[in-house]
């Protein structure tokens, strides 16, 4: 990293870190007081309204990766790169009707694992949990790494210290407040993210002439403006399917569907997609301005924050710092909460200890939030790979789950064998594609294989599922405390 790239003093960086750390932990404790029982802690009382529902879905999906990778996509693949990243919002749009159906079929559901277990049985459930845990850890690690990188780029705070503080703060307030804290802070964070991105973009536009940027890119890197850039077009579809896989399977989104009011969930998810769609372009275009501004990009991981801080000076660096911190926090907290829920409900309660009391579940949930934070910290500490590698390696895994989830929700003839083979074959061939062709085709291939297997299974060995089996509310209303 170039020392001249640092635009905030280390002291300013630490002060900002301290202010926002105290704010998030304080707000987390404040909202967390509403969590009176385990269901409140996990699902915020199942009564979240439109504003908080849309904001939490949007803020969770605006990860630090969006802020960091969207400029990278712009720099590597130009206009198509930014649009490719925007297609990740289609997952939110398409999850909207699914959220409605999820609420209808599983009125008292807790996790995405609940659905897979009830719908397809134990073998598919175990495979699903493996895929989901690998993806969740990859997402957590990539965000923790992004936090360390951006803090170092902007303020010179050592990667290990910055990454540790951000992760520690998220663990703390998720621990105190559960989903109430996560959703409440997500709303504040979503406003800061949106306003921050617009502010940085608008100020950059006052410093550069877009026609000069366009001419510069056309001269120095014409492929970035090419309407038919093959890799970028592949990336567009790949990213779209990667996004579908991430959202359709992960408990982060299912827990929100369960947490929102029944009449709100589908509208809130649709709105969150609408709010998310322009963000990769708004945050990414500044990377294309680097050449016109004479900025030497030496560390592509941090190109967005670098350009913003170089153009806007210390104030811009502060804004970027805060936006990235909010993006990180809004996603890390959600993943910590949803992943610990998955482990508590699906592994501990369903596999190991069905008679566990509410107090035991709550205590274990807290322990797992801390354990997940520690594991993430250990993996992220050495900063082994670049952001793309960590994130996109899990792409083919989650893409293989898209059609088993859709089929499970809408096709009564979808059965266990087809779903199992679809996930296994889709993941395997997708991973081979990742290493033999590239990340930009892996999710696409995985989803295509998975769909083919599901459709073939529908013809060869159709099932006949009774939708009523998904409703566990009569069996287990609100998980009464046996103690």
């Amino acid at each position, binding site marked *: 990293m170039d020392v001249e790239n640092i635009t905030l003093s280390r002291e300013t960086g630490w002060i900002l870190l301290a202010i926002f750390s105290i704010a998030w932990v304080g707000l987390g404790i404040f909202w967390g007081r*509403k969590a009176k029982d385990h269901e409140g802690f996990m699902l*915020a*009382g199942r*009564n*979240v*309204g*439109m*504003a*908080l529902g*849309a*904001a939490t879905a*949007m803020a969770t999906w605006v990860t630090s990766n969006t802020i960091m990778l969207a400029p990278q996509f712009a720099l590597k693949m130009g*206009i198509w790169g*930014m649009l490719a990243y925007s297609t990740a919002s289609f997952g939110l749009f398409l999850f909207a009707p699914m959220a409605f159906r999820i609420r209808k079929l599983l009125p008292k559901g807790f996790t995405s694992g609940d659905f897979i277990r009830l719908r397809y049985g134990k073998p598919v459930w175990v495979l699903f949990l493996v895929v989901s845990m690998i993806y969740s850890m990859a997402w957590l690690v990539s965000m923790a790494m992004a936090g360390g990188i951006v803090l170092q780029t902007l303020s010179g705070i050592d990667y290990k210290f910055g990454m540790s503080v951000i992760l520690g703060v998220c663990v703390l307030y998720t621990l105190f407040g559960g989903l*109430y804290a996560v959703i409440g802070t997500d*709303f504040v964070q*979503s*406003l800061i993210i*949106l*306003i921050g*991105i*617009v502010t940085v*973009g*608008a100020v950059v*536009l006052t410093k550069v002439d*877009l*026609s000069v*940027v*366009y001419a510069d890119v*056309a001269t120095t890197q*014409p*492929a970035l*403006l*090419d*309407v*038919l850039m093959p890799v970028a077009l592949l990336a567009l579809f790949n990213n779209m399917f990667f996004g579908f896989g991430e959202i359709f399977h992960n408990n982060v989104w299912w827990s929100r569907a369960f947490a929102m*009011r029944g009449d709100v969930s589908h509208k809130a998810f649709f*709105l969150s997609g*609408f*709010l998310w*769609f*322009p*963000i990769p*372009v*708004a945050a990414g*275009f500044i990377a294309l301005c680097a050449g016109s501004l004479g900025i030497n990009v030496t560390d592509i991981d941090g190109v967005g924050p670098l350009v913003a801080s170089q153009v806007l000076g210390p104030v811009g660096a502060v804004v970027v710092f805060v936006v990235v911190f909010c993006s990180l926090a809004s996603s890390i907290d959600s993943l910590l909460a949803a992943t610990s829920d998955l482990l508590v409900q699906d592994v501990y309660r369903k596999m190991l200890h069905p008679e566990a009391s509410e107090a035991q579940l709550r205590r274990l949930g807290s322990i797992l939030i801390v354990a997940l934070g520690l594991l993430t910290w250990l993996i992220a500490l050495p900063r082994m790979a670049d952001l793309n590698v960590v994130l996109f390696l899990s792409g083919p895994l989650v893409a293989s789950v898209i059609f088993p989830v859709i089929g499970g929700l809408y096709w009564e003839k979808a059965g266990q064998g087809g779903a199992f083979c679809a996930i296994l074959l889709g993941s395997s061939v997708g991973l081979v594609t990742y290493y033999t062709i590239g990340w930009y085709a892996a999710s696409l291939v995985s989803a295509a294989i998975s769909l083919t297997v599901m459709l073939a299974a529908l013809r060869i060995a159709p099932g006949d599922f009774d939708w009523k089996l998904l409703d566990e509310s009569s069996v287990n209303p609100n998980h009464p405390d046996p103690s």
Partner: protein
Amino acid sequence: MTFFPETFFYFLVYGALFWTGLGAAILIFLLLKDHKNKKIW
């Protein structure tokens, strides 16, 4: 090589910034509406 037209580049950047700002306004409006109807949580 066929380039995206410059006007499209303008439209994309300015449109994305406007749309993002509009998002913030929508969220604030919805929060006030939910608060009025006592439906925040």
